[in-house]
């Protein structure tokens, strides 16, 4: 987790807080009212062996930033003694956040910058599942979507498009190619993303992204959006090479280089004296 986002996981922490009634996080979010929809908060029912594996992995790879008990490392304690980097509390972030962050390779964080970037995951699927189960065992939070959740067969492609253009295109571009945000941050391209990762990102709101829980965008709508994104990725481009589908800028570059270039080459040929 990057250093300038201490509050990233708290929204979902609040879900857990209210539902289970723990007072771990203090009264701060109590004022925010009852926030959780019951469907989202699932307590872990994982096997003890999986939890044990998760615990080992967590202590090795995560605890230095997120604390031995998921309590997080506040920014002001960095440098004094052991912790080298701060990280948010993971209590109540749910298995979805862990699965998204770890299996897209964003966590454990590599270089610190404006944005934590995706990459190759350091853990295999089973290890990710163990970590997710371990973190989810502390407090309920958004769960990893099931296969049924991600079954888009009955979802409406057209509605997905409308929802995508209203909720997603402003940051991720009309063809899911991503876009710039302020101060060096950006919304990544999501057309190659796995459906479960798209789902988890909406549910947990990683980094700059706001949270789209199951009440602001309900599961059926999430399915429709995922279907639309997959369709953008899979559909052929009827008019030829799509030039990155980033809009008129790449078109302008093409006409100035290839178009005008080819025609000037022809002009030179036309004007040159034949031998």
């Amino acid at each position, binding site marked *: 987790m990057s250093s300038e986002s201490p509050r990233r996981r708290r929204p979902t922490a609040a879900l857990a807080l209210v539902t289970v009634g723990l007072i771990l996080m203090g009264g701060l979010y109590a004022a925010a009212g009852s926030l959780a929809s019951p469907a989202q908060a699932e307590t872990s029912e994982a096997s003890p062996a999986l939890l044990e594996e998760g615990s080992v992995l967590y202590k090795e790879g995560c605890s230095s930033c997120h604390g031995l008990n998921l309590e997080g490392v506040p920014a002001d304690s960095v440098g004094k003694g052991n912790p080298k980097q701060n990280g948010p509390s993971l209590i109540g972030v749910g298995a979805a956040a862990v699965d998204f962050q770890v299996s897209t390779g964003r966590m454990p964080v590599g270089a610190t910058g404006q944005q934590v970037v995706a990459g190759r995951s350091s853990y295999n699927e089973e290890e990710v599942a163990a970590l997710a189960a371990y973190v989810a065992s502390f407090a309920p939070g958004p769960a990893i979507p099931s296969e049924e959740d991600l079954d888009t067969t009955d979802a409406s492609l057209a509605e997905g498009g409308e929802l995508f253009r209203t909720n997603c*295109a402003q940051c991720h571009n009309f063809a899911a190619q991503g*876009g*710039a945000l302020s101060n060096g941050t950006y919304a990544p391209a999501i057309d190659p993303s796995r459906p479960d990762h798209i789902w988890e990102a909406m549910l947990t709101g990683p980094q700059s992204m706001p949270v789209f829980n199951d009440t602001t965008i309900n599961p059926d709508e999430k399915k429709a959006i995922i279907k639309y994104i997959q369709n953008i990725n899979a559909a052929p481009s009827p008019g030829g090479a799509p030039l990155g589908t980033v*809009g008129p*800028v790449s078109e*302008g*570059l093409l006409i100035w280089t290839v178009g005008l270039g080819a025609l000037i080459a022809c002009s030179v040929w036309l004007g040159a004296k034949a031998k």
Partner: protein
Amino acid sequence: MSTTQRAVATTTTWVDDRTGAGKWLKKNLRKVFPDHWSFMLGEIALYSFILCLLTGVYLTLFFNPSMKEVVYNGSYAPLNGIKMTQAYESTLRVSFDVRGGLLVRQVHHWAALLFVAAVSVHMLRVFFTGAFRKPRELNWVIGVGLMTLAILEGFAGYSLPDDLLSGTGLRIAQGIVLAIPLVGSYVSSFLFGGEFPGTDFIPRLYSIHILLIPGILLGMLTAHLLLVWYQKHTQFPGPGRTNKNVVGFPLFPVYVAKAGGFFFIVSGIITLIAAMFTINPIWLYGPYVPDQVTAGSQPDWYIGWLDGAVRVIPNWETVLFGYNISWNILLPALIIPGIMFTLLALYPWIEAKATGDKREHHLLDRPRNAPTRTGLGAMGLTFYVLMWISGGNDLIAQAFSWSINSITWTIRVLLIVLPPLVFVITRRTCLGLQRRDRDKLLHGRETGIIKRMPSGEYLEVHAPVSSATRAKLVASRESDYAPIEAPPAVDANGVKAPKKGRLGVKLSNFYFANRVIPPTDEEIAEGQHHAADDLETVRPSGQITSGH
């Protein structure tokens, strides 16, 4: 007489009896056109415009410029059941349900992009070679008008399909209209038939796009070409080329084949591009809805500089007696472009004021021979390109993982610092090149052969330059002109000189700063003679012919 000859004679007689075209044809069939690749830039513009007209007519057969809402039910599944205007729906239809319709749409759009690009480069060629000088000032002004109309026409076309991108563009245009002092709200309400977006604007824009602007464009284009025809084309300096002749190939047959063939080349290349590269995939943008937007909302390239200017301007706004003056919109969208285009249109007279030059010019300048003009042009171009880059700041930020805020600030600084710097560097470079040319004429070219003098000194041997090179270099005299001299502040009778004319002197001094005076014929003859002698000392005559 063969059958063909007889047929030609009969036809000619028939036409001449009725029109008297014979005299004109006699003069013009063998009219001479000089050959140079850069003279084809205007033709690229002309032909892409013609292609726009042809494809545009085809598109009107299918496009329905209406903002009435319908529910889509066509062959593009991801939009099925969605409400949209008939304009958007019919654009989808021509793209997906008319064989070759998408191709024609793409040819139309690519040709439009190329049209403005070719006009721009053509204009740069005319500017940097001084082709706008007397007697071609009027044609320059017509050219600036054509450029302005081309940009407007392009924007109108971009706005017609009523997809998310074109609607966003119109929303911005409407915001700019609103910023006009005093009448903004009224103009906007009249243009849009009420509030934005309304249901009137696209049909209105359609008439403007397919009738009004193309009509004016055609008229001005005709005038532009007639003047080129009548005044005869300029030519670059070279062997046998003088200010009083034009050297090249005859209209018939060479230019009929070359220029006619070039029309097909331009059309062919644009069509091939349209075959291979998508342009404006409106189905991906979706229909325009005023509360939807996409990241990377950009105009077509020729509006990019205006959009860029609007992006970099600081947020200045004045409220005066309860009225808003939005400098943050007026300056970049109306005032700065207004000043730029006015200066551009008036440039021939500004330069003539500085040079005091009243001669006719048919021989083109090499850019180095007009250092101040070349510097000014490079400066203006830098300003333009920076604004243009700013129009893509979000994509640059994304592509290079830079901060969009830093990019904006960098461009703000560069817009002030870079253009003057470019001016100074360009002018100096030109002056340096001019001095080198002068040296070649006065001392011959450097051969790379070193000889040792009896005194022990080493010298490089010079050789005379070829006649072709000499013709090119000597043309600097055509470009040169003496600066206007300031009248004495107080004349012989003690009367103070009038203030009038001082501006001209100042301009002139600025224009001719560090002027390199081209050598006279005697100096050149002497210099070349010396060089020949010099060469003789190391290579007896005949061994080396003059080089380049």
